[in-house]
């Protein structure tokens, strides 16, 4: 409503301004938690560094056959010729990182190693996460005997050092393959996820908004899946990203200890560090350094990304 002469009132001006802002928001597709989190993530340098590291390793892992100069298991005559117990050939034409103790191309083995290591770490974490969340949700939501049973079992598992438990599990298997390692590392992580989720579920069960949902007659199943679980997952997400790093280290440790896949041709950083790296540390320390640095970098990447994801996903950080 404009006054004669075209002068708009203050109220009208305000209203127009609000409409304008609303229109802009809805044009941008509205407000969305995921989109917001993504935008915050893109602005966080730590997240970018973490994501960058993981992305580089992922690309290397996926395109290993294209990136690697050679086949990782092939032994090269020009390398084996100069190979002795006291001297392992260093960088040479066609072999940028030189040879490993069996005359294979070290650079190619490092590149194929990314494939193995990431595969094992990611899969072990996801399997552990899946079962941990399932058990934790049941324990936290149901309570009673289910809770007691699940929690006592996790107590027993947590009482043992995780690596020792993983070693025991691998030792129990009749023959060791890559899958033994994955499952052992996954199982070790289940109680951590379960306990963490159960704890936050219990806190949620007593929270006002769950009481309010119950006062509205919301079904138990919906209360668990819509109200308790989404509010409890933050802690588990953080734990999962940290577990990526730990799972990679655990899998590497199992290989290092000789409990992984016994195939000597398999390129895996933990195995390379444990077998070649340790034995020939004085002859060619790079054999230990490069796999170790690679493991640390990947673990660092996951940790950085995980921490920033937690910050970004927390709705309280929205601006």
């Amino acid at each position, binding site marked *: 409503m404009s006054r004669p002469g075209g002068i708009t009132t203050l109220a009208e001006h305000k209203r127009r301004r*609000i409409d304008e802002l609303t229109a802009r928001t809805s044009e941008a597709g509205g407000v969305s938690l995921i989109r917001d989190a993504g935008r915050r993530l893109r602005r966080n340098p730590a997240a970018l560094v973490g994501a960058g590291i993981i992305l580089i390793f992922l690309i290397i892992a996926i395109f290993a056959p294209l990136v690697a100069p050679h086949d990782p298991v092939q032994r090269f005559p020009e390398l084996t010729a100069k190979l002795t117990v006291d001297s392992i050939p260093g960088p040479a034409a066609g072999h940028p990182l030189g040879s490993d103790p069996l005359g294979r191309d070290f650079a190619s083995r490092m590149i194929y190693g990314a494939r193995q290591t990431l595969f094992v770490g990611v899969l072990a974490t996801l399997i552990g996460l899946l079962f941990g969340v399932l058990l934790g949700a049941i324990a936290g939501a149901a309570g009673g005997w289910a809770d007691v049973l699940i929690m006592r079992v996790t107590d027993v598992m947590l009482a043992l050092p995780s690596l020792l438990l993983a070693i025991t599990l691998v030792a129990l298997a009749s023959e060791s393959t890559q899958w033994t390692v994955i499952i052992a590392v996954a199982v070790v992580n289940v109680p951590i996820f379960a306990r963490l989720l159960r704890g936050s579920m219990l806190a949620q069960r007593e929270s006002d908004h769950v009481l309010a949902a119950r006062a509205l007659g919301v079904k138990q199943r919906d209360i668990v899946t819509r*109200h308790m679980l989404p509010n409890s997952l933050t802690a588990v997400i953080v734990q999962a990203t940290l577990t990526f790093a730990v799972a990679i280290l655990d899998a590497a440790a199992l290989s290092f200890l000789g409990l992984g896949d016994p195939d000597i041709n398999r390129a895996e950083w933990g195995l390379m560090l444990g077998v070649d790296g340790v034995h020939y540390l004085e002859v060619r320390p790079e054999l230990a350094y490069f796999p170790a640095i690679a493991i640390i970098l990947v673990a660092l990447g996951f940790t950085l990304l995980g921490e920033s994801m937690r910050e970004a996903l927390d709705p309280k950080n929205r601006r």
Partner: protein
Amino acid sequence: MPLLDVRDLSVVFQREGAEPFTAVDGVSFTVEAGQTVGLVGESGCGKSVTSLAIMGLLPRRGNRVTGEVFFEETDLLTLRPQDLRDRRGRDIGMIFQDPLSSLNPVIPLGLQVAEVLERHQGKSRAAALRQARELLDAVGIPDPDRRLREFAHQLSGGMRQRALIAIALACKPRLLIADEPTTALDVTIQAQILTLLKDLVEQSGTALVMITHDLGVVAGLCDTVNVLYAGKVVERAERHDLFAEPRHPYTHGLLQSVPRLDVDRGGRLHQIRGSVSDNIPWPEGCAFAPRCDRVIDDCIGETVPLTPTRRRDGALRCTNPVPQEVPA
């Protein structure tokens, strides 16, 4: 027949290694359709526990709830949990004290309003969201389209409580229980929320149980008031009667402790001496006796019964009530 008829409701907390504690002790009151009834008392007198017991929201373990809570023809206390769940939110709505923590922090507001419509009216998500928009509009939330997509922490305190009222009233319940709905809000917003509640309740004919420690809220809203002390109703009266002539020394003390603008300043504000922890158990006399200014020998010894007064809907639990002014 009243809409809600609470008869002899008792809640006993039984904790391992501790004496059982009677939080609500034989409370009876009725709410007629469309009526607004207040439950008043200080912290720890059993107001909130009463409301949670009516809704069947107290944890099963460690609590013994006895008595009867008739909603129309059905005793809510004997209902199967799933049947009671069907009624909560549909027949009886509830609003809580803290509007921020009563909203789910990770779900947009729209979905929270829609949830109750989907649950009780079997609406599709789209239809529920459309109605959610109207509901937010009806409780005076500006720009509802945008608010539907926002999260609890993005709303102001008053807006959150408005949203909760919208959710509680979404299915047009016949009874709304409001547990201190304005305590967490500042005074100007309190007034707005109370006005809103009053308007909505009047428009829709919803009965309202108003739980509060604020006598100002009672004065503005309630038809009938139940004053609770240590888990028992100590005085019941129509609003006007209660404010004009409180009979129970506790009610009298509460009203005396409210600062007033029309009375001479300078003197100290009246206070009720002691605290709730000074109570004596009800079976041994009047729980309020140790704090009462009008205590006499008869107050201690046996339970003081709740007796009807001559006032309409009135009842009193006192051996030595504040005298009524003799009409000139």
